[in-house]
């Protein structure tokens, strides 16, 4: 019974689909989370009778053959890297990217990771770090006596110090762009790593050369839309149930056959 196995692939695919959807819903309120979607494709077909085979000695040609498919497989769960909406927080070190680009983050082992999550803080030395305490690249240190910090759209970090009328620039936030953002590898903590599929990072300054601009006092929300996730969830659940029904049907047919011998 091929149908048994075909329906089993259908059930497995929908199970994975529900996993992806539930992760999206779980991260609805995660800063800068990018939703994923499960991509399915049909499996190979067995051609039981070949198209174009001759059906008689007069040379009649079979116009259509018998193709039996063998189910479905998951090809990938690409991230949909669309812009999330910006929510105002009013906090000085909250920075959202409006447009293309990722912040660069130095991991504890010295490697570089990328994130859209700009909920930054200062560490004890006054350096700008992510919420997990990882330094951003290039490192920026805020002087101890700074009374006000401005991060402008171009990523310049300006501080006001006592006794001075003008602001001093203490650093420049840089962004990285990838030709295939969907090919980045998510490692949790809102961080992504470069992969062979994503291509090499293109570094640059916000607002120039196609990079997005920075918005101080804002955070990017997840790009998950509750309504579409829930409707996908319903579709996935129903598809799962229908594949289970196919298995029962195939089972009934098998039992009808096996009951022939009494």
């Amino acid at each position, binding site marked *: 019974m091929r149908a048994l196995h075909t329906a089993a692939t259908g059930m497995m695919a929908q199970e994975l689909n529900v996993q992806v959807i539930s992760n999206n819903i779980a991260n609805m309120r995660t800063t800068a989370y990018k939703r994923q979607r499960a991509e399915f494709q049909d499996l190979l077909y067995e051609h039981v009778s070949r198209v174009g085979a001759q059906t008689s000695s007069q040379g009649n040609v079979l116009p259509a053959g018998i193709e039996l498919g063998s189910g479905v497989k998951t090809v990938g769960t690409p991230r949909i890297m669309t812009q999330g909406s910006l929510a105002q927080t009013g906090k000085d070190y909250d920075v959202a990217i409006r447009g293309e680009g990722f912040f660069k983050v130095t991991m504890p082992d010295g490697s570089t990771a990328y994130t859209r999550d700009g909920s930054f803080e200062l560490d004890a030395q006054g350096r700008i770090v992510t919420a997990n305490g990882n330094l951003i690249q290039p490192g920026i240190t805020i002087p101890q006596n700074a009374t006000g910090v401005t991060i402008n759209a171009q990523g310049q970090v300006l501080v006001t110090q006592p006794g001075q009328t003008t602001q001093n620039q203490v650093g420049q936030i840089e962004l990285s762009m990838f030709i295939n953002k969907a090919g980045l590898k998510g490692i949790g903590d809102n961080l992504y790593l470069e992969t062979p599929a994503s291509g090499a990072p293109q570094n640059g300054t916000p607002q120039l050369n196609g990079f997005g601009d920075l918005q101080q006092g804002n955070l990017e929300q997840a790009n998950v839309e509750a309504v579409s996730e829930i409707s996908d969830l319903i579709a996935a659940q129903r598809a799962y149930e229908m594949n289970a029904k196919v298995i029962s049907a195939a089972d009934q047919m098998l039992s009808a056959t096996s009951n022939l011998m*009494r």
Partner: protein
Amino acid sequence: MQNTLLVGLSRQVVLRRELDVVANNIANVNTSGFKADGAVFEEFIGKTARSDNMSNRDRQVSFVRDRATWTDFSSGSMERTGNATDVAINGKGFFAVQTPGGERYTRNGGFLVDNTGQLVTSEGYPVLGENGPIQFQPNDVNIKISGDGTVSVAVAGNPGQESQRGKLRMVGFDNPAMLQKAGVGTFALKDGATPIPDTQSKFVQGSVEKSNVRSVVEMTRMIEITRTYTQVANMMQQQSDMRRTAIDKLAEVPA
């Protein structure tokens, strides 16, 4: 006597094949760009030793066999995703993709950009434009795909200026039955057929075409298949009971 069993068997073989087709449709109820299959049956007159020169002729025994599967090429529903590299087709056309096995055609437009900047399917096959694959530059942003397939991007560093990256091919066919399923959502063209350009269909950016499997229809077909199969099995059972009874009765030696 034997014919009942054999005719029943031919029906059961066909029903199993049909369930395989239905199972594949239901397995792909959420596969973007998938086209449902159906099965076609035909009567098959069995060749038997017959005598036709009596006043009551021998009746011919007809069996059933599956002749072909056909593909329903109607459009599935369109789901809006808002993703720039998702493209659906409004009309009868197809995308052309380059696979290791040659040119293939698909309705699944959930595309991605790979690490070399080419527009590819989720399998990684390049999507073909009118002059080969669509190639993006590393700092291209804001991909726009118009109704006729023109792919344009905003050029980094030159705000307001658009530059073209190619034009997607819209492939049509005189007769979609010339297409054969090749797995992974693609169709291959049977020998001797050639695609024709399609000027009627339109590309729709930011949408994906869902599977066109009508689940209600498939479920009812499935119920029909299982019921019929069980009935045929019962008929065969009765036939075999009848023979057993006949043998018992006829072989009874009167005391």
